[in-house]
């Protein structure tokens, strides 16, 4: 790959990001309702509302608002929250690591569990195992994460005490650490870890079901090709055929999928964060939506979009290295 396509792809990604940012600006301005009227008491005088609109720059024309907003965003100033008057960058800096950690931990588990399942299914397509696992993964894939979350909360809180499960299985179902406890070092880490078990397990289960479905299809496609039949015909062991010949060809798209799956998983954590009251991006966004806190909503949406665009770009650049036959994702 020459240097030129790289520069072109980066340029395309930047243009796309500008488009997305402008799109969120347009979407949010389309919303009915004036945030200024929501921030003052109902009996506030028109003068107060007017001053507030002026302070937030809401009285300027849309092109002026757009130019101001774009200029400020490009210099790293995402404005301040309408609701809390806190800089938006602070809100995001607090929330993003939590969602990212949740996303990365469940993404790793997703692939560790999902790829072997899909491999077994794809190699033995049409077998009893394949059918059973297909039903299982498709069922899990059909479950909304918030429903699994509620079911597991019922099992591991109420259920754990009535069924007489051991104490360590009574998992916390709320928040990211035990409220009021002052823990340090390993005890604090273990506390966060215990709080993370249910959210990570749920996201990983739904993700792994999807990856298993994808891997099964890819493995089945590759297994039908001539070089796999040749490898079998020359007497290689099934394990060697599946690892050396099939997996080698399935791996490249899987690595790309790894990059592409992260933003989706981080977005998917919105519901898990909502049920378990985790103070991540999803929760920040839901709170901001409820409060019509435009700057936070816009910033959160563009952060998610930035993650998607960056992941796509990374996948585009990495794929040719893994599989010289492919030039882009």
């Amino acid at each position, binding site marked *: 790959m020459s240097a030129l396509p790289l520069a072109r792809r980066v340029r395309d990604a930047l243009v796309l990001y500008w488009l997305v940012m402008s*799109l969120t600006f347009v979407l949010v301005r389309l919303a009915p309702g004036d945030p200024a009227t929501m921030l003052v008491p109902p009996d506030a005088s028109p003068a107060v509302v007017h001053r507030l609109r002026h302070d937030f720059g809401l009285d300027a024309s849309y092109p002026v608002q757009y130019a101001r907003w774009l200029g400020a965003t490009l210099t790293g100033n995402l404005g301040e929250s309408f609701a809390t008057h806190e800089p938006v960058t602070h809100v995001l800096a607090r929330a993003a690591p939590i969602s990212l950690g949740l996303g990365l931990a469940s993404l790793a588990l997703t692939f560790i569990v999902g790829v072997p399942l899909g491999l077994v299914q794809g190699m033995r397509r049409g077998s009893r195992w394949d059918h059973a696992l297909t039903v299982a993964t498709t069922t899990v894939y059909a479950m909304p994460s918030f429903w699994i979350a509620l079911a597991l909360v*019922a099992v591991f809180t*109420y259920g754990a005490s009535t069924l007489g499960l051991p104490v360590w299985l009574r998992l916390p179902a709320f928040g990211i650490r035990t409220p009021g406890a002052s823990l340090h070092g390993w005890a604090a880490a273990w506390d966060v870890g215990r709080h993370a078990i249910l959210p990570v397990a749920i996201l990983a289960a739904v993700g792994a079901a999807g990856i298993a479905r994808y891997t099964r299809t890819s493995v089945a496609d590759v297994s039908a090709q001539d070089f796999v039949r040749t490898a079998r015909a020359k007497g290689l062991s099934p394990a060697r055929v599946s690892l050396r010949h099939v997996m080698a060809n399935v791996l490249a798209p899987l690595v790309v999928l790894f990059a592409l799956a992260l933003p989706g998983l981080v977005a998917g954590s919105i519901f898990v964060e909502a049920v378990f009251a985790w103070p991540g991006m999803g929760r920040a966004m839901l709170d901001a939506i409820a409060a019509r806190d435009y700057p936070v909503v816009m910033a959160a949406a563009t952060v998610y979009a930035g993650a998607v665009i960056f992941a796509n770009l990374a996948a585009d650049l990495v794929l040719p290295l893994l599989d010289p036959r492919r030039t882009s994702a």
Partner: protein
Amino acid sequence: MTWESVLRRARREPLAAGALLLLVAMTLGVVLVPPLSRQDPIAIGDVLALRYLPPFTRDASGVLHLLGTDRFGRDLFVRMMLAGRISLLVGVVGSVAAAALGTAVGALAAWVGGTADRLLMAATDALLAIPRLVLLLVCASLWRPGLTSVMIVLVATGWMGVARMVRAEVLGVRSRPYVDAAVALGARSGRVLWRHALPNALGPAIVATALGVGNAILLESGLSFLGLGVQPPEPSWGNMIAGGRDAIVTAPWIALAPGIALIITVLACTLIGDWLRDRLAGEAAGLLGERV
């Protein structure tokens, strides 16, 4: 087709046949149960006597509550079937309309080409770059929540993938000899697209529609769960799950039962979508829809 050949076919493909059977049963259930039942799924009666009855119990007047009652004493099974009407409707309409819009945009972009193609695809890419959930939440929060806005938002956020696929297919089909032949015979451009190019480019769009029904049902339930979708007292599976959330420890069936109906439906749609994909598209693309 005789019954015998249908049975033979079903035995050969048990997953697809089972999925179809489930879907038919669910559709019959949501259509027939609410009018045939003596329970009113919306009105609230004697709350204190009727609320939180567990599944398979009879109340004082001897009425059997198959799945128990919710916190207002309403029969959960009848309510669930009524909610299923909305969820199925949203799923089918949302997915079909989104696929139709995507097909129109994709076919137009590929057929017209040039600046129109570039503009349409830029808009498609920009929308695709925002995770659908995030886009959905932003849109859902902008307008007054309700059945109509959920459907509009599902269509507005669901057409882009189909547009990309159909565009690629139409571009591929456009250079086929039969298209040249139709042009040479003097057919107008629009007719060539409609009668010759489009029918041969629809495979991936059909698969995406089938898989999209399950996805739309899931997304609707997610929005309703967060209070941004269908609003109570109108029941949908998502807001029923949300309604049972507070009682998840004391009366878990209230939140769990609608979820099971939802999972059965989405599972059936996905299995049918898979079956279609194996026959029509033969590609793994579009397999990983975003999950709620």
